[in-house]
């Protein structure tokens, strides 16, 4: 009977209460429950990377019309990453000559620590989260700013000028994309009137994706850049600079950078699901409590959360498989001239609209107003960009030598590929 209770409490994700009922409450029990929770969560994060790398290789291979890993561990190559990790673990620990020992070895530890710490505020199911901070979203931003510092540590500590240059590029990118990310995150905070991740989920009777799709898009793009994924992967452009800031790292130290990247990407997917897709909410089923008092609904919430998280993560991989890498000046220009102004206007408009809508307004109407506002701002931004693009095209057509080559007597050929805006060939003097 006791075993049955244990199984039931495991299935209903309520092991903490079972332990409290069995062994009595007290500071010692609470401490042990907390330590157990931390161990379970961090081990899960570290282990799921093995699966994520396999998944990424498989999906990318499918997108690129290949098969992917298919030898180690059966037909689907399931154990390929396990073998890879074994290889990394068995490598010799190397410190490059002239490297700054402290900075060189501190960087991989700190970057994994930072990416694990962020998981503390992610709610997995109703009542299943590390901690419900009233500043949850801000906490994530603060912790993720530590990872910027670790890149500098790695780049500088390696005593390699290419690593240092890579670190400079990476820091420029990460610091820049923090700005639109913070601005985009203000929108769900305004809508939910709280910074706590659990509070934001509770506020989403209609997922915030429908309230503020533009904010979701901006957050998604900047989270791609923050985790250094393709199209913004100049941190680790395999075909250009080999590996950027972690070029001097080998074995498991290199593995730890990979680990942090994958944990960070999965966390950003989960964070997106929490902020914009309603997190663990699944039509109220996640709050279902059975007759004998077990919260079986939590497992439904957990499944819903993971489904949403992996849908978002799949788009990460999809983008990686389809989009080419941008140049560093394009990345920074797109950020400062595109994302930042749009997100500033969006924050201003959403804050104003949120104040102006009377509090008695039905939720659907409120959502429609916000949605219209978002679409309007997105359309205006695209229209401004289109006009500017046309202006630049026209200017280059007006200047002789910049437009199409006009050869005397061959005017008809020059205007042949018709763009609609090609000017008449210049008259011969």
């Amino acid at each position: 009977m006791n075993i049955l209770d244990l199984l039931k409490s495991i299935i209903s994700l309520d092991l903490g209460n079972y332990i409290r009922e069995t062994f009595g409450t007290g500071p010692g029990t609470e401490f042990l429950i907390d330590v157990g929770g931390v161990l379970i969560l961090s081990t899960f994060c570290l282990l799921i990377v093995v699966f994520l790398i396999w998944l990424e290789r498989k999906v990318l291979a499918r997108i690129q019309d290949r098969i992917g890993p298919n030898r180690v561990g059966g037909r689907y190559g399931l154990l390929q990453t396990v073998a890879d990790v074994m290889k990394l673990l068995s490598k010799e620990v190397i410190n490059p000559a002239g490297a700054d020992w402290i900075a060189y070895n501190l960087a991989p530890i700190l970057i994994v620590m930072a990416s694990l710490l962020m998981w503390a505020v992610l709610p997995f199911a109703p009542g299943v989260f590390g901690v419900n901070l009233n500043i949850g979203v801000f906490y994530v931003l603060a912790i993720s700013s530590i990872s910027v510092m670790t890149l500098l540590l790695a780049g500088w500590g390696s005593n390699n000028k290419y690593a240092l240059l890579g670190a400079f590029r990476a820091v420029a990118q990460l610091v820049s994309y923090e700005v639109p990310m913070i601005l985009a995150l203000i929108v769900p905070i305004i809508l939910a009137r709280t910074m706590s991740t659990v509070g934001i989920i509770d506020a989403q009777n209609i997922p915030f994706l429908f309230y503020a799709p533009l904010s979701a898009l901006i957050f998604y793009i900047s989270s791609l850049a923050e985790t250094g994924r393709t199209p913004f992967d100049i941190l680790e452009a395999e075909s250009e600079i080999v590996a950027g800031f972690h070029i001097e790292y080998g074995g498991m130290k290199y593995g730890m950078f990979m680990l942090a990247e994958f944990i960070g990407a999965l966390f950003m997917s989960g964070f997106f699901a929490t902020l914009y897709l309603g997190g663990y909410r699944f039509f109220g089923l996640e709050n279902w409590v059975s007759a004998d008092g077990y919260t079986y609904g939590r497992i439904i919430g957990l499944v819903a959360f993971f489904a949403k998280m992996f849908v978002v993560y799949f788009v990460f991989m999809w983008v990686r498989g389809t989009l080419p890498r941008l140049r560093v000046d394009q990345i920074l220009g797109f950020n400062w001239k595109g994302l930042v102004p749009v997100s500033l206007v969006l924050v201003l408009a959403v804050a104003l609209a949120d104040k102006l809508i009377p509090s008695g307004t039905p939720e659907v109407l409120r959502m429609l107003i916000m949605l219209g506002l978002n679409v309007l701002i997105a359309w205006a931004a695209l229209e401004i960009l289109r006009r500017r693009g046309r202006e630049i095209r026209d200017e280059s057509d007006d200047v002789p030598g910049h437009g199409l080559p006009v050869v005397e007597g061959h005017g008809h050929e020059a205007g042949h590929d018709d763009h609609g805006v090609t000017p008449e060939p210049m008259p011969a003097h």
Partner: protein
Amino acid sequence: MTQQVIFIILSVVLIVSAILVVTLRNLFHAALALMASFLGVAGYYVLLEAGFLGMAQLLVYIGAISILIIFAVMMTRRLMQTIETPFNSQPIVGLLGAGLLLVILIVVITGLYSVTPGAESLLGMAPPVEPVIIESSVARLGRAFVSADGFLLPFILISILLLAALVGSIYIAWPKHEEENS
């Protein structure tokens, strides 16, 4: 009890890293130690239930100021190869300054909390604060910034200062075509 233990651990980290900042010869390591001491201060804020302040400390000091310092250290080549001793020849002035700070701190703390034996001491226990106030501290902070009887004027002044700094940095970075032409 737990709070005291955490406080002592944080204090040790803070004091050791602060001493390292001024004694290490390698400037890059000194910057790292400075970061550790910033982290300790953030830990104090979290311990005092001021989570927002603690996270702001992390975001601003470790995420921005330290990066700036490290960039400055890296970009100045001469600073990286310094072998000078980090001590200067002003021990008496330094001692005076430290002593004065100690006196001020003692005066301020004894003015706020009674530490004489027998009197009811506030040092032993945390001052009573309702959990509702801690829970809504961020919202209260925000309202205090924009309410007229709060900190509206300083808030606006700081905003203008930041705007001026932004405009100034753009002006400095703007390419100067006129000078090249003349």
